[in-house]
C-alpha cells in the first residue's frame, strides 16, 4: 500500500512518473484507451449475433463502457448530448477567477480537449435504450444497426407504415430515452392508433400514462439471457475459494450454460457496474466480491 501512495505523490508536484510498465499488465480485456466510441465499437463486436439470428442489433451496455474507459465522467460526457458541465465549467471558471485564491484545478481543466469531441448521442450515432430490469442498466446501440434491424423486423407487417414514419421523423429529431404524449401527437403528428401500432411493433414500450420508452423489438430474449448470464458469472466468482478469481482464469474457464452471451461480455458488465472489485496484482487483475 505504501508503494502505491508514493507513486501518487510525485504527480502532485507536476513531475512525470519515472517508472512505467510495472503497473500496466498485459490484460486481455483492458486494451482500450480513452474513447467511448472505440469502446462501444469493440463491445459491439463481442455481442453474439448468431444467437439471435441477426434479428437483434448488437447491444452494448453502459456499464461495459465504464470498464473500458476508466474515467466515468469522461465516458458519460462522450456518450451524452449537451453536457451541462460545459456551461457549469465556464461559470466555475469565472467565479474562480473572481476569488482571491489562484486555484489550479488541473485535472478539471485538462479535460477541455475531450469536450471538443462532439458527444456521440448528440451526433445521433448511438441510441441509448432503457433496459427494464435495472435502474442503471442502459443499452447502447448504433443508430444504423437499430434502423436496419427494426425495418427488417416490421417488413410486410400492418404496422410497417407507422414504424417507418417513426424512424424517419422522430429518431433523428429527438435523441431522448423516452417520449411524452404531447410530444408525439403535437410535435411529430402521430395519432393514437399509430402509437398503438408502434407499441405492437415493439418500438415503444409503455412507461406510464402518456409516456413511452424507446425499445428494441425482440429485446426480451436478450434481457432474459443477460440477467441469467450475469447471475451465472457472478456465481462463478462467488463459489471460488475466498470469493475471488483471477481475470485470466475466469476467462479461461468454460462458460456456464446460462451465460449464452459469452464470458467476456458479462465480465465487462460486472466490472463496470462495480458488482466485483478489480484488484491489480502481480499476476494480473483479480476479481473479488465486495464485502459489503
Amino acid at each position, binding site marked *: 500500500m505504501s508503494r502505491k*501512495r508514493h507513486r501518487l505523490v510525485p504527480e502532485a*508536484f507536476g513531475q512525470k512518473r519515472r517508472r512505467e510498465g510495472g503497473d500496466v499488465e498485459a490484460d486481455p480485456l483492458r486494451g482500450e484507451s480513452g474513447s467511448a466510441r472505440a469502446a462501444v465499437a469493440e463491445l459491439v463486436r463481442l455481442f453474439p449475433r448468431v444467437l439471435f439470428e441477426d434479428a437483434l442489433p448488437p447491444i452494448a451496455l453502459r456499464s461495459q463502457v465504464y470498464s473500458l474507459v476508466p474515467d466515468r*465522467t469522461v465516458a458519460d460526457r462522450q456518450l451524452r448530448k449537451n453536457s451541462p458541465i460545459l456551461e457549469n465549467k465556464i461559470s466555475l471558471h469565472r467565479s474562480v477567477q473572481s*476569488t482571491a485564491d489562484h486555484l489550479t484545478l488541473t485535472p478539471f481543466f485538462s479535460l477541455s480537449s475531450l469536450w471538443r469531441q462532439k458527444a456521440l448521442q448528440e451526433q445521433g450515432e448511438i441510441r441509448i435504450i432503457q433496459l427494464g430490469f435495472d435502474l442503471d442498466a442502459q443499452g447502447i446501440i448504433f443508430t444504423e444497426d437499430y434502423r436496419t434491424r427494426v425495418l427488417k423486423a416490421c417488413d410486410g407487417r400492418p404496422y410497417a407504415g407507422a414504424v417507418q414514419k417513426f424512424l424517419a421523423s422522430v429518431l433523428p429529431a429527438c435523441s431522448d430515452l423516452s417520449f411524452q404524449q404531447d410530444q408525439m401527437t403535437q410535435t411529430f403528428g402521430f395519432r393514437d392508433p399509430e402509437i398503438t401500432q408502434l407499441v405492437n411493433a415493439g418500438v415503444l414500450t409503455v412507461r406510464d400514462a402518456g409516456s413511452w420508452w424507446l425499445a428494441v423489438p425482440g429485446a426480451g430474449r436478450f434481457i432474459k439471457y443477460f440477467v441469467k448470464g450475469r447471475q451465472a458469472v457472478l456465481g462463478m466468482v462467488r463459489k471460488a475459494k475466498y470469493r475471488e478469481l483471477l481475470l485470466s482464469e475466469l476467462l479461461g474457464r468454460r462458460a456456464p450454460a446460462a451465460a449464452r452471451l459469452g464470458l467476456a461480455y458479462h465480465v465487462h458488465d460486472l466490472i463496470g457496474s462495480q458488482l466485483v472489485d478489480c484488484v491489480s496484482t502481480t499476476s494480473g487483475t483479480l476479481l473479488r466480491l465486495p464485502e*459489503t
Partner: protein
Amino acid sequence: MLGFLSARQAGLDDPLRLRRAESTRRVLGLELNKDRDVERIHGSGVNTLDIDPVEGRYMLSGGSDGVIVLYDLENSSRQPYYTCKAVCSVGRSHPDVHKYSVETVQWYPHDTGMFTSSSFDKTLKVWDTNTLQIADVFNFEETVYSHHMSPVATKHCLVAVGTRGPKVQLCDLKSGSCSHILQGHRQEILAVSWSPRYEYILATASADSRTKLWDVRRASGCLITLDQHNGKKSQAVESANTAHNGKVNGLCFTSDGLHLLTVGTDNRMRLWNSSNGENTLVNYGKVYNDSRKGLKFTVSCGCSSEFVFVPYGSTIAIYTVYSGEQITMLKGHYKSVDCCVFQSNFQELYSGSRDCNILAWIPSLYESVPDDEEALVVSS
C-alpha cells in the same frame, strides 16, 4: 519540490501554489501511523466528530451512549509518539447528559467557549465548555437527526435542526426561541448544512429523496429543489425533482461554497452547482451507503484539487471532487465508519466508527524507497 521553492523565492510563482501542492501531496499520502493515536473513551459507536474551526486544536466526539468527549489534538510533548488525550467528557454520570444517542455535535463557530449537541432524546443542548454546564435546552416533538450552525454568520445565531418530522426548525441562540419553521419536505430530515459562502443559505436533505436549498429570509418556500436529471424528464426513470433514487443521507458544501455534494442510499454521490442547483453529472461510481440515518462526510480544504472523504462501509473512500476519480480507500476500522473530519492545518483525517474507535490518518513522511539494485549492493 525544490523547483517550487526556488520559483517561489524568485517570485515566479505565487506563494500559495507551493502550499497547495504540498497540501495535496500530504493528502495523497494519508495512512495510519503508529505514532499517533486517539485515546479510547467511548464505550459504544462514535456518531459524530467536530474539530473547532478557530485553532483546529480541539475535537468533540459524540457517541451512541450519549457521551460527549473533548480531545486535545495538539502534540505538545517533544516525542513523535503522541496520544490525543481527552481533556474532559460529559459522561453517563453527568446530571445533564443526553439520555439517548448523540447524533451531532458542533463547536460554536467563533470560539471554543460553547458547543451544541443534539440527540435522539429530542433535545438540542447548548453547553458551556469551561464549566461543562448546560446553557440552554431546546425541546422538540421528534427525534433530532442533525443540526448545524452557520460558520460564516455574523448577523444571526440560528441553528438549523433536522428532525424526524418534515419541518426544518431554526432555533435562535440569542433569544432562545425556535419559532422559525421551513416547510417543504415530506419525510424526515436527515442532514442540514449552512453554506460557507452566504450566511442565509441553507441546504437540507430528506428521506423523501429531495434536497432543498433555502434562503431563510424568504417567507415563501425553498429556493431550489435539486433535480438529478436537470429537468429532463425524458432521461428520468422515476419521478423528477428528486436528488437521488433513495433517501438523501448526507450533505457537504465544498469549502468555497460553490458546489454541494450529496450522498444517497441509491449508492450514488452527486455534485451540484449550489448557485443554480444544476447536477454537474460527475460520476463517482458506486458509493456504498446503507446508513439508515445521516452519513457525515467531509471535503478537504486548501489542496490544488479538492478531495472528498466518504465513509464507505468499514473503510473511507477518497475521491477527487471535480473529476470523480477514486484515489484510494483507507482501511483500518473494524466496523462501519459513521463520520470523518478533516483538519486542514495539518492535513489530518479523523474518523469515528461503530467499533468505538477514533482513528487518526496522518500524512506519511516521504521516505525514498530503495528499489534499485545498486542501492542494495551498496548497503550490503
